[in-house]
């Protein structure tokens, strides 16, 4: 499994570079809505958080889930329904979406961790498809139409989210909190055990760790954070539809990671930005998005497995930043 994660932090230079990029990135994001269409940046932020949540599982635990759309789209449905039908405030809706995603993650993870590697990917894909069929049939999702016209509401009873700038900075705050949480998890003792499972599962077992529990915990956390991203997206765009629970969406989040750099903190954010940007560009050009994403997938796997950020680390920061890709 270790080869999926070609990068390892650790050299002083790479740490300095990451912090520099992070500071620059945050500054850029605070200024962004004054220069770029804020709705577009919010979309990027939601997908970036989704991609980071996915990276917690793939990059740091070595588990390839092909079913993360379930948590992203499922949370969007829960949040949209609670806010629209029950009149819940947005913060409660988002928390419910997160909780629902965590619960779905618990069930899916419990089943999927019984097999490893390629089977794990297939099981998560199949269970996600099952959830998709459930969403098609269940009355509360309103079928093909999806839940439309979700009110943005007033956050904590004081901040009116119908004002675009308010909404933007709330989304930015959620994104930063989410990414910070992932960073804390990854660099905690718990995160170190996750990495040891990624590197050598049998070794971790022989050291006495109940690997299954750690995998499940990572799966649930990743699901909850993906849910946070999905629920936030439902509030921003004021709808939740079937698109977000399809297997294509699960593929898209993998692509964001692969393109940006699996196992790097910044990679998924870069990947998400590029994929969302590309889709926006293609949407008006008439060139089919699936062909473009498919081609990027193939090229990345064949010649560009480190991803953009991983490639930068490997080229400019010396062999220590290189996990040793022999393929």
């Amino acid at each position: 499994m270790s080869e999926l994660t070609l990068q390892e932090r650790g050299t002083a230079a790479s740490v300095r570079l990451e912090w520099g990029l992070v500071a620059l990135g945050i500054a850029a994001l605070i200024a962004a809505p004054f220069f770029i269409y804020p709705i577009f940046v919010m979309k990027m932020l939601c997908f970036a958080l989704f991609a980071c949540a996915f990276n917690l599982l793939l990059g740091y635990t070595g588990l390839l889930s092909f079913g993360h759309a379930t948590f992203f789209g499922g949370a969007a449905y829960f949040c949209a329904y609670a806010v629209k039908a029950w009149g819940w405030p947005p913060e409660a809706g988002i928390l419910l979406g997160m909780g629902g995603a965590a619960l779905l993650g618990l069930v899916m993870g419990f089943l999927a961790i019984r097999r490893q590697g390629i089977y794990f990917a297939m099981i998560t894909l199949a269970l996600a498809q099952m959830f998709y069929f459930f969403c098609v049939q269940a009355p509360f999702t309103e079928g093909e139409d999806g839940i439309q016209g979700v009110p943005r509401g007033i956050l904590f009873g004081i901040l009116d989210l119908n004002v675009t700038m308010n909404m933007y900075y709330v989304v930015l705050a959620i994104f930063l909190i989410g990414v910070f949480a992932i960073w804390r998890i990854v660099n905690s003792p718990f995160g170190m055990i996750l990495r040891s499972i990624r590197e050598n599962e049998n070794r971790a077992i022989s050291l006495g760790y109940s690997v299954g529990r750690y995998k499940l915990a990572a799966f649930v956390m990743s699901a909850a954070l993906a849910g946070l991203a999905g629920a936030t997206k439902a509030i921003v765009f004021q709808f939740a539809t079937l698109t977000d629970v399809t297997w294509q969406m699960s593929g898209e989040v993998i692509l964001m990671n692969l393109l940006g750099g699996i196992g790097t903190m910044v990679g998924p954010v870069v990947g998400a930005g590029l994929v969302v940007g590309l889709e926006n560009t293609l949407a008006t050009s008439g060139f089919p998005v699936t062909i473009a994403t498919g081609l990027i997938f193939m090229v990345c796997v064949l010649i560009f497995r480190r991803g953009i950020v991983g490639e930068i680390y490997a080229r400019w920061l010396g062999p220590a930043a290189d996990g040793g890709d022999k393929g």
Partner: protein
Amino acid sequence: MTMIFGIPIQALLGQLLVGLINGSFYAMLSLGLAVIFGLLRIINFAHGALYMLGAFIGYLLLVHVGIGYWPALVLVPLAVGLFGMVVERAALSRLYRIDPLYGLLFTFGMALVIEGVFRFYYGVSGNPYAVPALLAGGTNLGFMFLPNYRGWVVLASLVVCIGTWLLIEKTRLGSYLRAATENPELVQAFGVNVPLLLTLTYGLGAALAGLAGILAAPVYQVSPLMGSDLIIVVFAVVVIGGMGSILGAIVTGYMLGLAEGLTKVFYPEASNLVVFVIMAIVLLLRPAGLFGRDA
């Protein structure tokens, strides 16, 4: 009218037949996946796309060249198999030394591209493919009416599955293949051209998918999306059966088709879900799969 559990027996048999047809395709596709996985250690996500490609090549041959069903039955597997071999040589062969998950991701991308191209040119609507004249009509079996073509599909898939099983278990080529699955380096040392064997294996798997596609063309509509939904069900089938055994893949395929048909009779709302539910139950009770030996 005879009834079983309050269901007319005709309806029951009718759904069982539909289930058997679906099961035939599950069996052929999971067989191809198992053959490819056995040697290449790659899960071929593009299997559904190759199946769709087979159906489409058959359709295009008929519409643009006037080549009918029977020649297509030979030409389509050859074309798809050749396509598969080119892909294996050009790309997949570079991925054997790295994590098998990359093979899954590459073939996923390939599936998106193939599907995207056909969607771009032919839209998402289905195109009907007429049943060949020889197999038009149906036979009254006394207890039910059997459309001839459907009977043919079941028969043909059985022949294909048993033929492939015999090829792998009983022939010299098959013995090389099984040996290479166990230990490729050693087989290579004995003078067997393993890279060629890998290419042929992927070609065989692709040809099986293409053949399933042309067989499916008159049953379902020929559409760019016909493969992608099917492949996920086939993945579930493969998880249930375990990929350790070729025979296991075949038997599981038919069984799950029948289970789906039965569900359609008794609880239609769940017929989409039943394969996945069975997968979950099998994972709880027997994580290695019904016929699985690998962990």
